């Protein structure tokens, strides 16, 4: 997997992809803006979501033990998985014990994170994705490129081709005369999937939330495929990250408002399914909960980085991010793309590889992701924090030297003045196309003309000799709108300050 800058280069040059991404992200972000604006208590909901998550994370051990007790009391079985390999082994063992070779899946980031489908395939078990977009991705042997809309990079014409060419190999084929209007495509998927739901006896899901108090798991989805998977099969196995726990149902209520509005731009999502253990004669008769760590406790140990664990996977940050919009999800080289991926992936996997070390830099720090995040994850803060970690590693000699040199120049105004004079003296020699790292700049942009003289030099020669046109502000001209400024204004009138010459602090 190439590092982000290289992977993004391909994407930025793919006009079709750029068009698809732009259209999709702008549609979702406009819908989100509209439904969030409807609520006058959005900022308080956001603060509540943040506070609940923070409190739960602070006492995570307590709530996880409580969850285990409740799930067990309701007739479920809880398994603890330290990493991906352990989680995959547990799930594979559970499926094998049923004697089945097929499982249906509810769209789940956790199972993608641990590459469960691949692990099951190695054990001779086929996992069938039932979410429409995941189905498209699976049929085309592609990778998801968005948390919420995994096939965001595909348009209708492409989807029609995928259905026509690939459905038959996986089950019920697409009709011969399949068109590319959404209704026809949805109907083809419906027919293809229905047969699968009715035949398969084991389901694997994730969960958006797990309520510690009652041992209830919650999935929010839009198509009803999730509810089919959660109710029809005999055995249900849910793989859930340990950060998904919430203490009570009243905590859940906050997230059931935050999540749909932030992710799909809906007031309420079409399907909210909750399940608690097993009920004789109704729904799956066997239920397993696999609680997944896979790096999460390490993230928890980092006081700045741990806020990433608040994430409810709404993908609002992806939809607003100008970098994601141009680079697409695949460039992030992880199941978690976009701004949240840029902080979550290097925390879960570490910054050891070149690809993971590049992720914290895959942002212009514009701050739109923080503004839009329903649980107020300060993504720019964590990005900078992770950049410090990357910069402290061995290597980056050129960059370290450049930063050191710039730091040295800036640590003395005389050095800075000398450097400026050197730049000004060489102004006629600067070529239109720069060599080295500067080439990245001059490939697409003109560099500004270098001035004859720096401000500093102009100030010494001429600027400092000027005087205000009037000695004091006209009455009423200084208006203080903020209370703290009246104190400053008082200080400014103290004689020793107003008498100080312009060169006083040289």
């Amino acid at each position, binding site marked *: 997997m190439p590092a982000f800058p290289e992977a993004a280069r391909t994407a930025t040059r793919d006009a079709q992809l750029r068009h698809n991404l732009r259209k999709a992200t702008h549609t979702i972000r406009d819908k989100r803006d509209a439904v969030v604006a409807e609520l006058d208590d959005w900022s308080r909901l956001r603060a509540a979501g943040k506070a609940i998550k923070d409190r739960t994370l602070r006492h995570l051990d307590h709530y996880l033990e409580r969850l285990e007790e409740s799930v067990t009391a309701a007739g479920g079985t809880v398994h603890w998985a330290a990493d991906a390999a352990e989680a995959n082994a547990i799930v594979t063992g559970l499926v094998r014990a049923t004697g089945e070779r097929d499982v249906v899946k509810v769209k789940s980031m956790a199972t993608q994170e641990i590459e469960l489908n691949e692990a099951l395939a190695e054990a001779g078990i086929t996992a069938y994705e039932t979410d429409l977009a995941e189905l498209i991705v699976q049929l085309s042997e592609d990778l998801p490129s968005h948390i919420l809309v995994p096939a965001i990079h595909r348009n209708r014409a492409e989807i029609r081709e995928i259905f026509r060419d690939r459905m038959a190999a996986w089950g019920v084929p697409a009709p011969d005369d399949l068109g590319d209007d959404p209704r026809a495509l949805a109907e083809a998927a419906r027919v293809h999937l229905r047969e699968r739901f009715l035949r398969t006896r084991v389901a694997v899901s994730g969960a958006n939330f797990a309520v510690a108090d009652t041992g209830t798991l919650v999935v929010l989805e839009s198509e009803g495929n999730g509810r089919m998977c959660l109710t029809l099969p005999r055995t249900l196995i849910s793989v859930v990250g340990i950060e998904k726990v919430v203490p009570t149902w009243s905590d859940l209520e906050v997230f059931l408002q935050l999540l749909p509005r932030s992710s799909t731009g809906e007031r309420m999502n079409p399907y909210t399914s909750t399940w608690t253990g097993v009920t004789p004669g109704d729904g799956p008769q066997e239920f397993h909960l696999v609680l997944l760590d896979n790096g999460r406790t390490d993230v928890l140990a980092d006081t700045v980085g741990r806020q990433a664990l608040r994430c409810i996977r709404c993908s609002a940050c992806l939809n607003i991010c100008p970098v994601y919009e141009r680079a697409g999800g695949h460039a992030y080289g992880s199941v978690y793309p976009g701004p949240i991926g840029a902080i979550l992936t290097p925390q879960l996997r570490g910054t050891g590889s070149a690809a993971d070390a590049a992720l914290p830099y895959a942002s212009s720090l514009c*701050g739109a992701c923080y503004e839009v995040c329903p649980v107020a994850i300060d993504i720019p803060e964590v990005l900078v924090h992770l950049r410090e970690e990357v910069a402290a590693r061995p290597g980056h000699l050129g960059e370290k030297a450049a930063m050191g040199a710039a*730091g040295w120049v800036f640590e003395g105004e005389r050095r800075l003045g000398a450097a400026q004079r050197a730049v000004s003296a060489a102004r006629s020699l600067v070529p239109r196309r720069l060599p080295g790292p500067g080439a990245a700049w001059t490939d697409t942009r003109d560099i500004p003309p270098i001035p004859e003289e720096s401000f500093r030099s102009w100030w010494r020669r001429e600027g400092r000799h000027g005087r205000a046109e009037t000695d004091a502000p006209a009455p009423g001209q200084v*208006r203080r709108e903020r209370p703290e400024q009246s104190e400053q204004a008082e200080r400014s009138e103290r004689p020793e300050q107003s008498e100080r010459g312009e060169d006083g602090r040289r």
Partner: protein
Amino acid sequence: MRIALFITCVNDTLYPRTGQAVVRLLRRLGHEVVFPESQTCCGQMHYNTGYRREAQRLAVRFVETFADADAVLAPSGSCAAMVRDNYPRLGEPGSRLDRAVADLAPRVYDLSELLVDVLGVTDVGAYFPHTVTYHPTCHGLRLLKLGDRPYRLLREVRGIDLRELPGAAECCGFGGTFAVKNPDVSAAMGSDKARNVAATGAEVLCAVDNSCLMHIGGTLERGRTGVKAVHLAEILASTEQEPARL
């Protein structure tokens, strides 16, 4: 009022016109301006790239330079935001740096804040007979929360024809070292921004940050659009007697 200028390293070296415009404007409004010469750079580039120690040293220099200033004007949204938003993260809680930052940061202003909030003016007596579109810049918009202050100032400029910029809130793609580390994405963002600017039909792109203007302006120049990138200070300093050179 006596105003200390923090001209910022980019403005000082590459855009002295911005600082000169600020000096002219503030003197015209009847204020005293000083330029403490021990200033250099706020350390934003170091901080944002992950070089915290270097940024800390520059923060120490900044707070020492401006410790006794009544008001510090930084005609750069991102540098003002660096001081106000990121300096408080640089010093250990309770350290000398931390206390100095807590004392100084609230007195550091962007140009539009200084004029509107502190000096209480929106009509600065400017004359600028050109079509202008305004890019709010990410730091101005989201960290400093400048809101409509720059527009309030621009609307009072005589002769100006203000045009709304489509997708104004979107980042231009400069992002300091982002432009060098991720050149393709940065250029793609810049070209989209430049296209939106050109679509307004404006002669002038205005912003409060020369770094963003350098990026978008450089893209506009390369595209031979004829649109000029101009800092807000230069528009506000422009008068009939002394019009800004485009």
